[in-house]
């Protein structure tokens, strides 16, 4: 129903005239139609309209100035200049001025546009009729007839060989795109199953970059180690340390509950992978009183005194332990690589 079709007597003014002010009389759901248009001050007073124009122009000019200020700040302020601004504290002059000027530049454009639309652009209410969505019956009949004729002429239903081979061709074409996904990167091959650790590799303290000695590691301490020969500026350092990083702790041998852990330790010094077996976060929130290690990502908790068994959280495997011993120089060394893949599980891990 459109505003043009509203019966005259249903308009508010007519209603009042016809029925007086009797409550509940007549059709309670009658469309009251659009209220009468009320003008704005700018529609009546040309000076007010000019004021609004100036206000909008002021906003846009402010935006221009702020943009110029943005460019100027970028040129003027060195990147490391720190200034004190209440209440933000000691902030970067560059970041602060860039943010402030860009914020003003964008806000002023928006504020100007809103003020323009509210005060100067026409606000006369306009009603547009809605049309039926369905097509006329003749048009529908013609389309269906044309489609049937087309299907008949193409022999789509009769020559099944053509139809079936076409379906096959259309189904196979997308495979070309799928095959190209293979270029996204090399296959991991055996890389997930091995790390840099090997028999005879010394444990290097990541603080001092010196080989760790058993007497350095005291009960209750936590040390991080990486394999000998890995350099911090090597091109694949991150790739290698992401698999090889170790947590070194010492537990009184009598307090180690797991038999294999005690055998793989050296006088109570145990070396566990630092990579969580859930999704591979570096995990080292070690509580020295309980020997529990917590992963900060999803709260998986491992008991390092019991074979790094999972005692809480989503991790599916215990942390892999590295078998360690002491070499002829008295330094800690690995007695081989990890016996199982480190880090998160993967499809073929088994």
């Amino acid at each position, binding site marked *: 129903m459109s505003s043009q079709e509203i019966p005259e007597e249903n308009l508010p003014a007519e209603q009042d005239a016809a029925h007086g002010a009797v409550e509940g009389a007549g059709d309670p759901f009658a469309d009251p139609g659009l209220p009468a248009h*009320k003008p704005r001050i700018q529609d009546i007073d040309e000076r007010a309209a000019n004021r609004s124009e100036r206000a909008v122009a002021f906003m846009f000019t402010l935006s221009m100035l702020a943009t110029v200020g943005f460019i100027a700040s970028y040129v003027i302020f060195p990147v490391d200049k720190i200034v004190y601004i209440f209440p933000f504290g000691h*902030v970067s002059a560059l970041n602060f001025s860039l*943010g402030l000027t860009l914020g003003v530049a964008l806000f002023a454009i928006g504020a100007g546009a*809103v003020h323009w639309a509210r005060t100067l652009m026409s*606000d006369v209410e306009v009603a547009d009729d809605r049309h039926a969505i369905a097509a006329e019956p003749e048009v529908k009949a013609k389309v269906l007839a044309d489609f049937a004729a087309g299907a008949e002429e193409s022999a789509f239903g009769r020559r099944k060989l053509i139809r079936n081979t076409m379906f096959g061709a259309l189904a196979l074409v997308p495979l070309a795109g799928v095959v190209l996904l293979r270029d996204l990167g090399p296959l991991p091959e055996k890389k997930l199953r091995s790390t840099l650790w090997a028999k005879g590799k010394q444990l290097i303290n990541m603080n001092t970059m010196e080989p760790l000695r058993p007497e*350095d590691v005291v009960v209750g301490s936590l040390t991080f180690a990486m394999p000998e020969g890995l350099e911090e500026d090597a091109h694949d350092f991150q790739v290698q340390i992401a698999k090889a990083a170790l947590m070194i702790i010492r537990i009184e041998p009598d307090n180690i509950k797991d038999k294999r852990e005690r055998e793989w330790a050296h006088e109570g010094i145990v070396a566990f992978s630092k990579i969580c077996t859930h999704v591979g976060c570096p995990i080292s929130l070690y*509580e*020295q009183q309980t020997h529990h290690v917590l992963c900060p990502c999803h709260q998986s908790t491992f008991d390092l005194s019991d074979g790094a068994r999972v005692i809480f959280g989503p991790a599916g495997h215990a942390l892999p332990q590295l078998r360690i011993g002491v070499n002829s120089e008295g330094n800690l060394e690995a007695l081989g690589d990890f016996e199982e893949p480190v880090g998160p599980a993967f499809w073929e891990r088994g």
Partner: protein
Amino acid sequence: MKKLSARRRHPLAAVVVLLLALAATGGLYAAFAPASKAQADETAQSLAIDEGKKLYSVGCASCHGTGGQGTTDGPQLVGVGSAAVDFQVGTGRMPAQQPGAQVPKKKVIYTQAEIDQLAAYVASLGAGPIVPTKSQVSPEGADVAKGGDLFRTNCAQCHNFTGEGGALTKGKYAPSLEGVDPKHIYEAMQTGPQSMPSFPDSTMPEQQKKDIIAYIKTVNSSESASPGGLSLGGLGPVSEGLFGWIFGLGALIAVAIWVAAHTAKAKKS
């Protein structure tokens, strides 16, 4: 003399006499005190241990045992060293108020002199880490960048990247390092209080502890620069995102409502 006697009832006479008496007392003390101090120096250590033992018997023995051997309520103190006592008592963690997941930092109830006496007594039970000197914890000669590197390797997993602290399991937590005395940070690294593992000099040399302390001072103090502006507690992207969603979107909604609530019509209805 007669002149003096004549003025004995002068209003200021009492003040003059008092001043003379004070000067005499002070002078006598100055004359005798150094001698007694010299005597004290010789036996200072054993005196401190004796005094410490008295304080220990009153304040600590109920949980840690009469000789620091430990009980079911408290660990043994033989070999924890003076650094552990200075940290635990100096930050108010000890004496503990109640058993629980973690003993929190609170008001310090002993004076530094008493803490030194307690530390001397506990150190006499067995050798352990000793309280660092001023130069060991001062930021002079420290490498802040190296300290940041070491902090991220050894400390950030629990204490957050700028030392704001974080949660551990079952109600335990890593406390914030803001405003912590460098001496206490050093002692915590040496001794490993509560859940915290220790970082002894054998695996983290003294200079590296200094670097770490200098790093914490640089990134976590009222003077620290926060190039991005409001640090929002430095707790990371979750709190920052939440702030953005609540206050950023909230401000936009408030502006939209304000615009819609104010009609532009000449005749307000």
